[in-house]
């Protein structure tokens, strides 16, 4: 190794030292430890006892596990799909060189800055069965609104709607993407006689598909980690009838309420694998749907 290469190696390692420590202590070690604990009976207070794959076998037959998985998939799918439609619509509307874009953008964006704790409390008030704003609005058009967070059929849609309210973040991303689409493409499409919707389907969407892809993957991953909304709005049991018992909420209950850390670690690893698989599937799908020819 040449002296320069040696100096560079030394300097490189020195600069990366904090991260090498952080990576091992706060990421790789916990990830491996979680896997080891998932094979153990472990309550934090006592040392772990190895029990093999029992935790995973128990998970397969645990109705709460499946329920929380279904709830989370419902929430992630709903909030990602609706969020995509709403944020893309907003971005397209704002991209049309309308006056006052700045004001509109601020109004749409601000809700996404809301701390989840405060947002959840606000939406509990919005969804209040009698004097909440939502049911008042519904009553004014002659609909008797449901009890929302108190109704097992409506509690998940309620949390999805709250998530869509925070779609302004994605809107800003899409708006930036839209503004990067070269005008020459639209001009070419126009010469070919393409109407508004044809331009949208054949120019706009393909051109911002990498941005959409990136954002959707991130939203799915964060959707699977939903916790705070449900914890605050419906309590740690995910009332009513555990309809809002999300995966991480269940994990929190098992690990930090029941102190079944081994079982919780098995759940954590299953979540990790789910997220890996989803990301992998999204990458595969992106090959077909995402255009990368800039």
């Amino acid at each position: 190794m040449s002296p320069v290469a040696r100096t560079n190696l030394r300097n490189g390692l020195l600069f990366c030292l904090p991260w090498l420590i952080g990576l091992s202590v706060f990421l790789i070690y916990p990830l491996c430890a979680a896997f080891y604990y998932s094979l153990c009976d472990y309550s934090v207070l006592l040392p772990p006892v190895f029990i093999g794959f029992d935790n995973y076998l128990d998970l397969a037959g645990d109705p709460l596990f499946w329920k929380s998985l279904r709830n989370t998939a419902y929430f992630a799918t709903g909030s990602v799909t609706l969020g995509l439609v709403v944020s893309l619509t907003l971005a397209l509307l704002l991209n049309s060189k309308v006056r006052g874009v700045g004001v509109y953008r601020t109004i749409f964006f601000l809700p996404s800055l809301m701390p989840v704790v405060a947002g959840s409390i606000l939406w509990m008030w919005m969804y209040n069965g009698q004097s909440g704003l939502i049911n008042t609005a519904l009553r004014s058009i002659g609909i008797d609104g449901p009890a929302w967070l108190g109704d097992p059929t409506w509690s998940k849609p309620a949390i999805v709607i709250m998530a869509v309210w925070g779609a302004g973040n994605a809107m800003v991303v899409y708006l930036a993407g839209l503004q990067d689409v070269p005008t020459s493409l639209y001009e070419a499409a126009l010469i070919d006689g393409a109407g508004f919707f044809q331009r949208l389907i054949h120019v706009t969407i393909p051109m911002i598909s990498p941005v959409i892809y990136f954002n959707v993957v991130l939203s799915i991953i964060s959707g699977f980690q939903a916790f705070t909304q449900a914890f605050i709005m419906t309590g740690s049991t995910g009332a009513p009838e555990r309809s809002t018992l999300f995966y991480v909420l269940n994990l929190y209950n098992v690990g930090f309420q029941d102190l079944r850390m081994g079982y919780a670690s098995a759940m954590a690893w299953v979540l990790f694998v789910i997220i890996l698989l989803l990301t992998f599937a999204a990458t595969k799908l992106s090959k077909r749907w995402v255009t990368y020819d800039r």
Partner: protein
Amino acid sequence: MPSPNPLTRTTPLIHLPLLALATVFALPLLWLLLTSVQPREQVGKIPPEWLPRQAFITVKGETVPVTPPLPVGSDKLVVVPSAGPKQGKPLLVDPADYQNGRVTVRTQVADRLLEESYPAQLEQAVPARFVIVKEWFLSKYTSREARVFYVDPSAVTRSISPIFGNYPEAIRALSASEKDKARPLGELIGKSALPWTHKGDRSKTITFVTYLGNTLLVALLSVVGTLSSSSLVAYGLSRIPWKGRTTLFNITLATMMVPFPVLMVPLYGVFRSLGWIGTLMPLWVPLFFGGAFNIFLLRQFFLTIPSELSDAARIDGCSEFGIFWRVILPLSRPALSVVALFTFLGAWNEFLAPLIFLTEPETFTMALGLQQYQSQFGGSEWHLLMGASALLVVPIIALFFFAQKTFIQGISTTGMGGR
């Protein structure tokens, strides 16, 4: 003048859907702010009332805020007994119960109705059309007794008046233990336990100021930690060619897919063995060791800086750290401010990690303190809950207007914002 280019020409009709959507998006926030300045009697009305209204009457030149008027119903008299247990206190009685300067007072004692008669003075004749109003207090913790007035309905004026006093009341409600709540606000704040207060100092009370101090301390340390460590690492991964840096970078990218909930159980074990559970340390110490996303972000930015700049500095005898400190960092201010902003937001909004790692109320952050208050008093006192939520939200909104450009740039380039 309409533009001839159909691509840039827009119809003003586009404002219709935009305005409709903007209303839907703005209403919840507006509703939060309006509820937070309503008197508690107004909160929860069906249908809801938007603007905060307060009833007032004028007594001897003094304007007194009062509770919403209640009808008297039938003709009554207000008399003041000059003897007996109710001596000196005005009583509202039926005219039949006041004869010859004596009032008949009935009290239910177990299953017997006790009838007693006391001398009393007539103070006011109350016609049936009059209304009862009570002096209105902002705080339910006040020990003073409310005055009661019987007045003509026309004497009660209702006017739009925001109750900004709900905010100190929310601060009081959010913070103190039950026994502290009757203390004056100033005293309460003065006795607040602060993050650096010696642990176990029982003379200090836990207040909103404590939560705010904890939150700001964690946010500040997180920003300092992230900026210093992530920029160092990003430099090492982008501007020094060394064997293994590609591997390390790929590992770094891969770890971005590991969500916190997957790690929280073993991390709890790590922090427990370090003795950090119940302190603020789990929330900020790890940030001094870098974070994958911020490293990635800064690395991408550092790569855009021409290498000639580093080479020139190197020829001038600058050390590697000197180049990092004097050349790269000053050029990276936009990227560094995005990282700082999102780290601050993340620390301010974080809930799950504080919930797990903070066990002592004196270490609670604002988000956790708000949740604790909500879980105890949720479902009532919406005006105070909204006031307390506003205390968490308004600083963030202010920060947005202060650093709007950084926000929008940061989100447009990174595809996420503080989440």
